[in-house]
């Protein structure tokens, strides 16, 4: 068991609380960079997919986990990021400028959209964002001159300082690009959590009145959260475009929005780990199922809705039995080992709280 003897405040402020944790994450990052030498290109592609979903998950997590606003329309922001990036590059901007800008533009659009949505709570926000996701599809078709409508677009090859990056022919380079973006987004997220704005997010989530009384501007804070969330999501969208190789109005459908939300719930709402755990499930579930299916009833038989059906069941089981998601389970297992053999079952008992009515604000 690790005991933190706190000697300076710095321990709570710095990136990692102790040397051990810093070493663990350092090793993890080293491993991530060494990965292309350890596994073959096919699996590098799969891991890239996990990381892209994780970035998208971080984006939505910031909104849902940190400020408690559920969005069922984040695929729309994936789309904005993806199209903006592609269009900016077509206009002649270099990738190194276009890509960050695409995220920032998505963030600004998100914050602007958030302004009317700020007054919405709970289900109303969920429904408004569903509508947004559905509208995105139609709007992409209507904006055919820019978006290519139903025939879609193919992103150009990425060049960063003369280095060419392409998902199919050079999966390793693309992997490194995605890895760097992942690390940057994770750092942003972590930095927010340990600074005043991150605390204001939690304050807005838990009690708007007292947050106001402490000097937090509710609307501005929520819009900022929405904007930051959309910025990260926009980057994920741009990367998804490259990963898919082609995209059109149906690529970023409402199903993607829903999958994203389910993903972060399964992973564990409110934690950075949760986004990554959830991404692993989303990325590997299809493969896992098809292997299972081939083993059980032979290949070649298509079962429509199998993936979403199983995904739905997993989610229901998690919400019923482990509302903190995979991360919650992981924490418990870790604590159990750290305390071994002193862990007690009721240490993990859930806190009961009463339904907070939505009719009062």
């Amino acid at each position, binding site marked *: 068991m690790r005991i933190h003897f706190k000697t300076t405040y710095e321990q709570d402020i710095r990136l990692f609380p102790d040397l051990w944790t810093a070493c663990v994450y350092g090793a993890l990052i080293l491993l991530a960079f060494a990965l292309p030498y350890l596994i073959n290109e096919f699996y590098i592609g799969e891991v890239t997919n996990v990381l892209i979903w994780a970035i998208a998950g971080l984006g939505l997590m910031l909104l849902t986990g940190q400020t408690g606003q559920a969005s069922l329309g984040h695929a729309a922001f994936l789309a904005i990021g993806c199209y903006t990036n592609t269009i900016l590059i077509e206009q002649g901007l270099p990738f190194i400028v276009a890509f960050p800008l695409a995220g920032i533009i998505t963030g600004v659009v998100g914050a602007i959209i958030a302004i009317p949505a700020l007054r919405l709570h709970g289900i109303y926000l969920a429904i408004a964002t569903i509508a947004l996701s559905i509208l995105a599809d139609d709007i992409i078709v209507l904006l055919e001159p820019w978006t290519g409508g139903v025939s879609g677009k193919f992103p150009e090859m990425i060049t960063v300082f003369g280095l060419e990056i392409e998902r199919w022919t050079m999966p390793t380079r693309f992997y490194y690009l995605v890895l760097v973006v992942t690390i940057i987004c994770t750092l942003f997220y972590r930095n927010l959590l340990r600074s005043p704005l991150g605390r204001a997010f939690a304050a807005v989530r838990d009690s708007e009145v007292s947050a106001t009384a402490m000097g937090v501007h509710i609307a501005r804070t929520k819009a900022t959260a929405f904007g930051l969330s959309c910025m990260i999501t926009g980057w994920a969208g741009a990367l998804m475009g490259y990963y898919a190789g082609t995209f059109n109005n149906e690529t970023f459908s409402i199903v993607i929005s829903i999958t994203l939300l389910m993903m972060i719930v399964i992973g564990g709402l409110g934690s950075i780990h949760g986004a990554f755990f959830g991404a692993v499930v989303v990325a590997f579930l299809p493969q896992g199922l098809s292997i299972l299916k081939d083993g059980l009833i032979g290949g070649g038989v298509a079962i429509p809705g199998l993936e979403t059906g199983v995904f739905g069941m997993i989610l*229901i089981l998690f919400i019923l039995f482990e509302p903190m998601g995979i991360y919650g389970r992981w924490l418990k297992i870790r604590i159990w080992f750290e305390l071994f053999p002193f862990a007690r079952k009721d240490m993990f008992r859930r806190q009961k709280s009463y339904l907070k009515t939505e*009719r009062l604000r």
Partner: protein
Amino acid sequence: MFGSETVHSGRGEEILEVLQLLVSGLANGCVYGLIALGFVLIYKATEAVNFAQGDFMMLGAFVTLGLTNAEYLDLPFWIAAPLAITIMAVLGYLLDFFILRHLFGQSQTAVVILTIALGFVLRFVAGLIWGHEPQTLESPLALGDVQLGGVVLGMADVAVIVVTFLLTWSLYQFFQRTKLGLAMQAASQNQMAAYFMGIPVRWVQGLIWGLAGATAAVAGILFASKGAIDPNAGLLGIKAFAAAVIGGFGSLPGALAGGLIVGVIEPFAARYLAAGYSQIAPYALLLAVLVFRPHGLFSQVRVKKV
């Protein structure tokens, strides 16, 4: 499609066309309204939103179809329909009993996502049982047309409208007049107080889920009488959401009104707006309502006292 046959444009023809658009819109709107009714019932009683209500409707339709169609059980329709409604009511109750009840105290987000996931599961299960080919219900409601002063109305459309209004009216009466209905209202307005007044809140909430299941079954039967269904039919629940929000999520007549508004907008938008814009209409209206009346047209939200 309506409208495409009327080539020559006389004034009378135009009025007829508008009438036909109106009736078909109303009939669709009734189905939305019935699903929206389910949302509102559950929301009022538990503050949960059942995003799977559309899939309940789909399931209700398939259960009826499985009971009555010749290639399945081949029961007479008038036995199959009440049976299906009962089955769906029981299913709704059990769902609450085994799943929703255990979410007590969790965030709204959890409930929202759970019911969405439930929808996925129901779609998957329905596909496994009944396949993914569109099928039609062998329903006596689906037969023939009614001639009303030159307007040709589908029998099914008329039946849908009549049944919907009857059902909404009786639900409304139920909540206003019967003891159980009033208890349900009380349970919805203040769970804690209702609990202390001796109303078995959990049991009442289970009943509401059952009622929502039954309503969905009725919607499903009507929907399947109007056309083919497949496991993805429940996705039109999204339009029913729009309906419920426009109606304000608070009142049963409001839900029906919202459904009718969405239902009527659709055929008219398809007829009079350019192709790309017509599908947008219901959602644009939804967003407009949310922007200007954030809690629907008949808001129930008050400011919290501190």
